[in-house]
Structures are given as C-alpha cells and as structure tokens.
C-alpha cells in the first residue's frame, strides 16, 4: 500500500489547479505587461488570480497581494521591508519565535548582522507562543513581530488574532508566515490585524515555485528582486501567470471545502494520534488539539528517526523526521529543541502530515507499521537496551 503522509513538505496538485494551469499555458501565457490582446488577456487572468487570493484571506483590496516565487521569498521580503523600511524612524528591534521556519530565522540572522536587535522567543512546551511574552518583549523601538500562523513540524496553531490585536494596539507591524495555514485554517487578515502574510502554492495542492505576500495598504515594501515594474513595482520579473492562476484556483477550492476537509482530516489525525499512543516511551509533540488538521508528530525513545523513516518508506509510507541524521546539518530539528524536547528524544521523531484524501485504512496501516518498525529498531538499539536495563534514564 502506498501512503503519502508528507503533505506539510508538499502536496499533489489538485485536478482543478492543474486544469487551470494547463488552460492558462495554452490560452493565456502572454506577458501581462504587453499591450496587445494576448498580453491583456493574460493580465486579466493574473488580476483575477490576485482577486481570488485576496478574497481567500479577506484582504480589503486585491492590490495588497504580491505574487512571489514562494513562501521563502515572501518571508524574506516581509522581514527585510519592515526592518530596513522602519529603521529611519528609529525602530531597530524585531521579535520572532525560535520554532519559525528557516526562511524567517535565517533572514533574522542576516538582519541581526546588519545591526538590528532581534528577540527570539521560545514557545511554551506545547509549541504555542505566550502572547504575554510577546507583550513583554515589545519596546518603543520594536518595528515588527513575526509569528507563524501554524508550525510546519508540530502543527501548533498560534494565537494569531490575539497577537494581531496586541501589535495593532502597540503600533508594531505584524507579519505571519501562513505557509502551512493557508487553505487549511480560516484566515481573515482584517479581523486578525495582520499587516503582512506569506503563503506558498504547493502547500495546498497548487503548483511549486509560486507564492504570495499580502501587505496591507500603507505597509511599505522594499524590493528583493530588482528589475521591471511588475507587481506594482515591488517584485520584478515577468509574471508567472499560469502558476499564479493555478495557485489561486487551488486556494479558492481549499477555502470552499475547508470545513469538510478539516472534519475529515482531523478525524484521521486523531485516529493516528490515538493509534500510536500505546507505544511505550513515546510522546506526541505539540498541542493535542490546537494543531493543524493533518499534523501528527511523535517521538519514540531509543529508535532513530531516519531509520524509522527509511523502513516505513519500504512499506510505502512516506513521512518525514526531525532527527539530526535526516538533515544535512546533522542538528536535530530546531523546532523540537525549541519546545524543550530532550535531544535524545528529538532524534527519534517522525512527522506524518495527512490530507483529506488519506483514508482510515491507510491510517490503520501506518499505525501497524510504526508499531512494527519502532519495535524492530529498538530490538537492535544499544540505546534502548541501556534504557531498559536502567543504565540510562528514560526521558519520555
């Protein structure tokens, strides 16, 4: 049986999205900046896509949507714009969280080198940031708070509306990386006081290589890509209309079906969480309920994540791991470290990210195989042996 359970890494493209993309490649693949008919027909498709993206997050105006190459570019532009843009106003302080995506953390690192003061807050052990902690960290010179909508590894949903309200009251810009949330959780940028928001097409059954940055009217964007005057002069490069249209179609479809998809995915998620709970010395990472509909992240003590992942792959189950050995850097997941998980437990972690097209049968198959491979690797693990003999202490 093949079970794709890595939807947080990327999703398959939906039929709707693919059809829009192909139609567009055939019929509206001009340059929207051209004044002739083909160009103008393409421009119409592009602007229709912009309107759809705006509507999906309740932006006040489609002009507040800027198409980019994806979530990372959107994150880069949002942070750099807020930091460098507000510097002349004496604002030199940025706030973020330790379990953000690298697109945020590495951009913050770069801004720190430029001389900005960066505060990186740890979330609570359940992976959710305390709004009080943000409030305490805000200073008169704070330019921006950037807190993700929901975490990509452990699924924790952040109190975005409360953070937006706080930032609004304090006169601080609020950016949220909503790459994992768009089309999966309700987003209302106006009601939630979000000034900037990043999304990526391929996380909700759209194409790769396309994303969007929402920037509320009045928020000044600085260019990352210089060149022509596309995207209202804020993002140069001939518009990738087929990708933007396909992303917008996928987003529209996801938002329209959100309620039904969420109900289905949450039921599968909870079935998986409960099904793995009887594995001794294991723990669910992240909040039990305030988590993305399809996210399940477990640590299994005494077994190593990459081995578990490879063994599951042999059974047709595709997932991911936060172990050091499954990363190029050989550092365990900074998210699992950020929630205070002991490093030896982080090495034995697996993430399953389910989608609405997964089935109960598939979930039961995952449960069966995870039990099997965890037992199998513990059997040959000197670490497990030492834990069981009491030479080492269990941390889970």
């Amino acid at each position: 049986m093949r079970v794709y359970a890595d939807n947080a890494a990327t999703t398959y493209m939906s039929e709707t999205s693919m059809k829009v993309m192909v139609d567009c490649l055939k019929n509206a693949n001009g340059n929207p900046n051209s004044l002739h008919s083909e160009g103008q027909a393409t421009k119409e498709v592009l602007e229709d896509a912009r309107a759809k993206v705006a509507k999906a997050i309740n932006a006040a105006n489609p002009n507040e949507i800027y198409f980019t190459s994806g979530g990372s570019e959107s994150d880069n532009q949002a942070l750099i714009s807020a930091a460098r843009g507000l510097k002349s106003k004496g604002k030199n302080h940025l706030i973020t969280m330790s379990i953000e995506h690298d697109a945020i953390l590495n951009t913050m690192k770069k801004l720190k080198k430029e001389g900005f003061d960066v505060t990186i807050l740890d979330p609570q052990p359940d992976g959710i940031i305390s709004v009080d902690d943000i409030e305490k960290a805000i200073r008169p010179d704070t330019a921006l708070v950037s807190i993700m909508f929901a975490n990509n590894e452990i699924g924790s949903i952040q109190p975005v509306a409360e953070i937006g309200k706080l930032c609004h009251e304090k006169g601080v810009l609020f950016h949220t990386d909503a790459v994992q949330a768009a089309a999966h959780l309700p987003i209302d940028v106006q009601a939630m006081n979000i000034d900037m928001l990043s999304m990526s097409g391929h996380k909700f059954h759209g194409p790769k290589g396309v994303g969007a940055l929402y920037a509320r009217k009045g928020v000044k964007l600085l260019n990352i890509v210089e060149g022509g005057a596309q995207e209202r002069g804020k993002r140069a490069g001939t518009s990738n209309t087929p990708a933007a249209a396909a992303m917008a179609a996928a987003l529209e479809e996801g938002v329209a079906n959100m309620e039904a998809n969420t109900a289905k995915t949450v039921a599968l998620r909870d079935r998986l969480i409960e099904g793995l709970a009887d594995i001794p010395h294991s723990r669910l990472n992240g909040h039990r309920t305030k988590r993305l509909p399809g996210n399940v992240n477990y640590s299994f003590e005494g077994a190593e994540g990459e081995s578990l992942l490879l063994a599951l792959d042999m059974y047709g189950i595709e997932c991911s791991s936060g172990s050091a050995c499954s990363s190029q850097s050989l550092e365990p997941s900074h998210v699992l470290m950020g929630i205070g998980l002991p490093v030896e437990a982080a090495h034995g972690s697996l993430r399953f990210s389910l989608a609405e097209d997964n089935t109960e049968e598939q979930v039961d198959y995952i449960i069966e195989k995870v039990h099997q491979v965890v037992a199998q690797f513990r059997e040959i693990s000197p670490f497990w042996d030492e834990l069981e003999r009491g030479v080492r202490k269990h941390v889970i």
Partner: protein
Amino acid sequence: MLYSEKVMDHFEHPRNVGEIENADGVGEVGNPVCGDIMRMYLKIDDGIITDCKFKTFGCGSAIATSSMATEMIKGKTVKEALELSNKAVVEALDGLPTHKIHCSVLAEEAIKAALVDYYKKNDMELPPEIKDFKPDEESDL
C-alpha cells in the same frame, strides 16, 4: 537516491545483528545526544575473530556501516581488524553521502574499542594502532 543499493541492502538486511554472550571484546562508541551509538561484540580464538555481532542506534548509514564492518572483520585476524579503516568500509558500501562519513568513522572506532577491551581483558599490551585510542564520539556511559 540518498544511499547506494549496497547501503540500502545492509540497512534492510543487516548482517550479524545481536549480542555475543561472554564476548572476548565489547566496545561502545557514540552517545544518544549525538544520535548514534554502536556496540560491537567480538569472539576471538587464537588471534582470529571467529564471530562478531553489533547493535546500533542510528540512521540508515550507521546501521549499514556497522553491518558491513562486521562482515569485513569476521574470520580475519586481530591484526587485520586493527587495520580496518573507515574508508575501506565506505568503499565496500559503494560510497556514502559526505555528511554521513562520520558513521563509518564510528564503525571503525567501535571495532577498535572492542579490540581495546579484548587486549585489556587479557592483560596484553595495546598494539600501536590502538595505544592512544580515543573515539570521536565517546560513549558517555
């Protein structure tokens, strides 16, 4: 593919997994914080490694390198085992990704640690190859 077919074969069907009771030499390197632990058991008769088993906690390449290393020293003399390099293990596996080379180092060191134990148990003088042996990732036990 991340790994060669040989690595995947040794990962999927590791050779010589287990423990040896009353082994003549046992060595353990690595620790859970680093994310990999290898333990080697040697049975040695008349200077020949007649049996060798391992237990490994670690990634796919850690398991594959342990498995390959046991195959490479089984039936060999202690002297030959002392000369086994991590490079030879990597070559036998048709290569490893650069960031996984340390797994092969661990395998070499696990064998050396077991041989140190063997020499010490028998009150023999440590040969030059392992006289000042100190593994990269020392066991914290």
